[in-house]
């Protein structure tokens, strides 16, 4: 049942236009990152820079440049904060997700509702109190801890729900077999459920990591010194009082995006299955 020619042509035309729209802004960022300071604002459209330069990239690493060459600080901070957030959230969420999946207890429904609701909090809801508590009272401004705790406010509920729905798919007979072998409830969880859940945990961790890696608002509130910045707000350093260093902005954007993109494509199959388990049911 072959499609008529015009239909195939139409399908491809639409998809080609859509693909061009999807790709173009990204190509434009890439191209701009190699332009010198005059060509970034010009009335010529140059997809391939006429006078390409690497200076925007070099400046990211050069301590003598205006933006201080803090790239490795930012990268390190982003990595540390994302890893800590992920580890904390997955660790806490695993037991809770398990309890919600396997046990009946008083308070189960309100807890589930609480996790669902706190997942939809926009960051601004906790901004004022977290700034006062973590920033002023505990003096955690410009530390990774402020952000790890702030990110945990959404990452933990999210991970709980994701893991709960993963645990739901594991047959309960496995643990019962374990109990016959003399394992207690904690032993069964740790020795049997956790090892079997590695794929679910990996997907959950991936989500938590990417969310922390890309977060912008809390970082803006809690980080005020360039050496403590994460990559997302490092981009802000390229905005001066009146003007913006577009070449530098784009060079940093390219470097931030490449690992995320690679990561994304490696994980895309799981992303989709994650959608089916966590996102959609949640």
């Amino acid at each position, binding site marked *: 049942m072959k499609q008529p020619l015009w239909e195939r042509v139409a399908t491809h035309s639409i998809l080609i236009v859509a693909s061009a729209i999807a790709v173009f802004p990204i190509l434009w960022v890439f191209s701009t990152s190699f332009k010198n300071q005059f060509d970034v604002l010009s009335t010529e459209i140059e997809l391939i820079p006429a006078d390409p330069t690497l200076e925007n990239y070099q400046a990211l690493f050069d301590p003598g440049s205006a933006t201080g060459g803090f790239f490795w600080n930012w990268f390190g901070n982003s990595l540390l904060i994302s890893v800590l957030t992920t580890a904390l959230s997955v660790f806490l969420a695993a037991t809770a997700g398990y309890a919600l999946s396997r046990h009946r207890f008083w308070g189960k429904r309100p807890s589930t509702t*609480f996790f669902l609701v706190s997942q939809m909090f926009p960051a601004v809801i906790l901004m004022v109190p977290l700034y006062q508590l973590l920033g002023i009272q505990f003096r955690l401004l410009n530390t990774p801890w402020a952000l790890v705790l702030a990110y945990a406010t959404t990452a933990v509920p999210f991970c709980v729900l994701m893991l709960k729905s993963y645990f739901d798919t594991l047959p309960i007979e496995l643990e019962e077999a374990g109990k016959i072998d003399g394992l207690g409830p904690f032993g069964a969880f740790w020795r049997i459920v956790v090892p079997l859940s590695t794929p679910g945990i990996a997907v959950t961790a991936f989500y938590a990591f990417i969310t922390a890696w890309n977060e912008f608002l809390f970082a803006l509130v809690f980080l005020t010194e360039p050496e403590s910045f994460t990559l997302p707000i490092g981009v802000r350093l390229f905005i001066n009082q009146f003007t913006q260093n577009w070449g530098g902005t784009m060079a940093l954007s390219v470097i931030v995006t490449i690992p995320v993109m690679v990561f994304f494509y490696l994980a895309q199959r799981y992303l989709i299955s994650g959608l089916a388990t966590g996102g959609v049911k949640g």
Partner: protein
Amino acid sequence: MRERMWVAYAFMAPVAIVMALIVLYPLGLSIWSSFTDLDRSNQATIFRPSREQFIGLDNYVGVLTSADFRGRLGWTAIWTGVNVFFHYTIGLGLALLLNQRFRGRTVYRLILMLPWAVPAFISAVAWRYIFNGEYGFLNLFLGGFGIDGPNWLSDPFWAYVAPIIVNVWLGVPFMMVALLGGMQSIPGELYEAARVDGATRRQTFWNVTLPQLRSVSVAVTMLGVIWTFNLFVVIFLTTGGGPGGRTDILVTESFNLFQAGELALAATYSVVILSLLLIFVTAYQRAFRTEEAAA
């Protein structure tokens, strides 16, 4: 049974404690702050304790009766509705195309997912650059066709359109992938049966595909509404709320109030935002649950 309860609580305890400390307690503080006149000049600092005063419902009365808030609420609703509409329809259209068998569809799918893979704050900044009225790509491109493009970020009308363009660009891939997943899990027999009945493709779409996508659609549109309603970076980094604060949605306005030092008003805004979200989610779920029960 009692022993199992004890086990469950032991499993829940770490999360319960942490959530109480970093979510419930701050949330309580936020609600408390919204009944005070807390701002940057009377907040607690290392130099002195806080001096804010309880002022009852004044903040709520002030916010809810202001024309500014109503305008912003209206724009936030339009922003959310228009975005989710385009996310869903374009996502559905592309998913339908990709659900056919033809050479190269994996490549198309990977390319079309690209906007999802780019961090949103980067896309927003990149689009801001593209929207520059005089030197931006978009207007230079339109100029090539003899079209005099508008000032996307400062024209009172186009400044509303520009962030919607950015967010549609950002949000379509998620819908497309989710709906494509939904389509691929529709049992082939249903299509077979429709073909046997002599249904046209249009009829098949309306009577098989769309009803089968129902639960996925309900879920993704609800997520879409929540995400878009809460989406801070796109507005903040493309228009920055401009021109003159017109394009600020509720969450960016709450942040602006925070930056301006109006902490109590920022908290008031955030409580209002949370209430609106809760009302929406409850109503949405109820609407679809009762409909499902009736069907």
